[in-house]
């Protein structure tokens, strides 16, 4: 099937626009995807740092609470008098007002003197934090609490039966009025199934946050598919982070949603890696930006094609009409010239016939003149001679014109073929 010039021109213009548009679209998608990914990685890195800042702030807050309480005269007096009931009440009031999960006081030997929400029994003498506090330190750190410790503090249910827990804690020595250490106070927030920290951070920095003990999420603002919190789930990448002590930034799927996430190791103040903090933004956010941008590009691309066609169609139509009209004129001229050529040839034949008649007439006149002399016959011979000369001139002219007409006709025939080809090119229809 032959396409007309009009169709081909418009097709070529449209094709060029579409090609340019597609190249632009692909380039935009590639660049946009790359840049958004880089921007997302920067975003999650920054926000993960901000989330770590919230954990640090919570440590400082607890340390402040504990040191303030250690300086309390009432606490000191209760410790010195071994007034367990008063101690329990005082510690309970502090935890209720501050949001601490536990607050415990021990004597110089590590024996428990008072607890906020559990019976004041047993000893914490072997607890490394207590040991440090009794040695004059004020540790403020993340720690992994043992199941036994949690059991003693009445937090076993929150952590999960038989499980340890991740906590933000602080401990400090308690001194008498002579600055002699008489014991220590130890408080903290168990992070397992406690959501204040992750919710506060998520409200402030967006995205989703989680705290991971080992490789298990113990607290998070990630929403599970059923709308509940996504906790107590294994995060395989976190195991690698804990093992290598190197942060991971990239795709991570939690709760059925793929996030661009950063998983950073978290350590205690002795440098032991305990778990990881997790911060992520849904990949769909990036995908949505790409999709919206692509849609906008496609829309504007279609607008561009329509505008180009609106401008191109009249131009191509005008060009096509002009070409067709000129082609038709050439073909008509060729036909006319063909008639002239034929007429010239026919005229030449007639002139040749006339010349033969004049020559024959001259021969007869010569014969008559040889038989009888006459002035009129002489005059007739002279006229015949002149007539012969004129006919010879006419014949020569006719031959000259016929030759030139044939040359012209050949040229016009070639032009006619060009016109026919042009017409076929423009209209797509075979010439007849």
């Amino acid at each position, binding site marked *: 099937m032959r396409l007309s010039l009009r169709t081909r021109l418009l097709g070529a213009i449209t094709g060029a626009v579409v090609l340019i548009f597609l190249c632009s679209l692909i380039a935009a998608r590639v660049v946009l995807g790359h840049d958004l990914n880089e921007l997302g990685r920067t975003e999650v890195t920054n926000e993960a740092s901000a989330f770590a800042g919230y954990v640090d702030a919570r440590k400082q807050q607890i340390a402040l609470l504990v040191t303030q309480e250690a300086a309390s005269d009432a606490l000191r007096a209760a410790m010195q008098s071994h007034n367990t009931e008063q101690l329990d009440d005082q510690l309970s009031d502090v935890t209720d007002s501050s949001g601490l999960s536990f607050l415990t006081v021990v004597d110089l030997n590590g024996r428990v003197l008072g607890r906020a929400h559990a019976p004041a029994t047993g000893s914490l003498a072997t607890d490394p934090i207590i040991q440090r506090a009794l040695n004059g330190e004020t540790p403020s750190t993340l720690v992994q609490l043992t199941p036994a410790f949690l059991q003693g503090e009445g937090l076993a249910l929150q952590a999960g039966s038989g499980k340890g827990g991740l906590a933000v804690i602080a401990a400090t020595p308690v001194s008498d009025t002579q600055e002699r250490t008489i014991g220590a106070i130890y408080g903290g927030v168990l992070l397992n199934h406690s959501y204040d920290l992750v919710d506060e951070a998520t409200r402030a920095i967006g995205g989703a946050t989680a705290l991971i003990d080992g490789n298990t999420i113990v607290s998070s603002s990630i929403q599970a598919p059923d709308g509940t919190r996504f906790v107590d789930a294994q995060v395989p990448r976190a195991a690698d982070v804990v093992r290598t002590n190197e942060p991971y930034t990239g795709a991570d799927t939690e709760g059925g949603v793929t996030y661009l996430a950063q998983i950073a190791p978290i350590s205690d103040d002795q440098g032991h890696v305990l778990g990881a903090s997790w911060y992520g933004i849904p990949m769909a956010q990036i995908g949505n930006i790409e999709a919206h941008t692509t849609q906008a590009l496609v829309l504007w691309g279609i607008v561009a094609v329509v505008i180009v066609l609106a401008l191109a169609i009249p131009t191509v139509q005008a060009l096509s009409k002009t070409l067709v009209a000129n082609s038709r004129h050439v073909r008509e001229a060729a036909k006319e010239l063909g008639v002239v050529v034929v007429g010239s040839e026919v005229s030449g034949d007639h002139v040749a016939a006339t010349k033969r008649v004049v020559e024959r007439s001259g021969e007869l006149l010569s014969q008559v003149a040889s038989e009888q002399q006459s002035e009129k016959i002489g005059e007739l011979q002279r006229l015949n001679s002149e007539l012969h*000369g004129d006919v*010879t*001139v006419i014949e*020569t*002219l006719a031959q*000259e014109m016929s030759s*030139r007409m044939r040359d012209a006709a050949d040229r016009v025939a070639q032009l006619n073929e060009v016109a026919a080809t042009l017409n076929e090119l423009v209209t797509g229809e075979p010439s007849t």
Partner: protein
Amino acid sequence: MSGAEAILVFSSNADAMIATKALKDAGVPAKMIPKPAGVTSPANLCLSIDGAAETRALSALKDAGIALGGVVK
């Protein structure tokens, strides 16, 4: 014709035809004739003019840019 006849010879029949038109436009009477015997020319046609109009004829042909092969008197 008031003077002797002059025959203008051209290098081609086409020049002879164009010269006829040029002389007619210049007002110089001219008659196209077959090439006379004894005249050597590649063209078969010549122009016969009055010898007295030769100067005007040559000037008209020069103005028209037509090359003249020769003049036979």
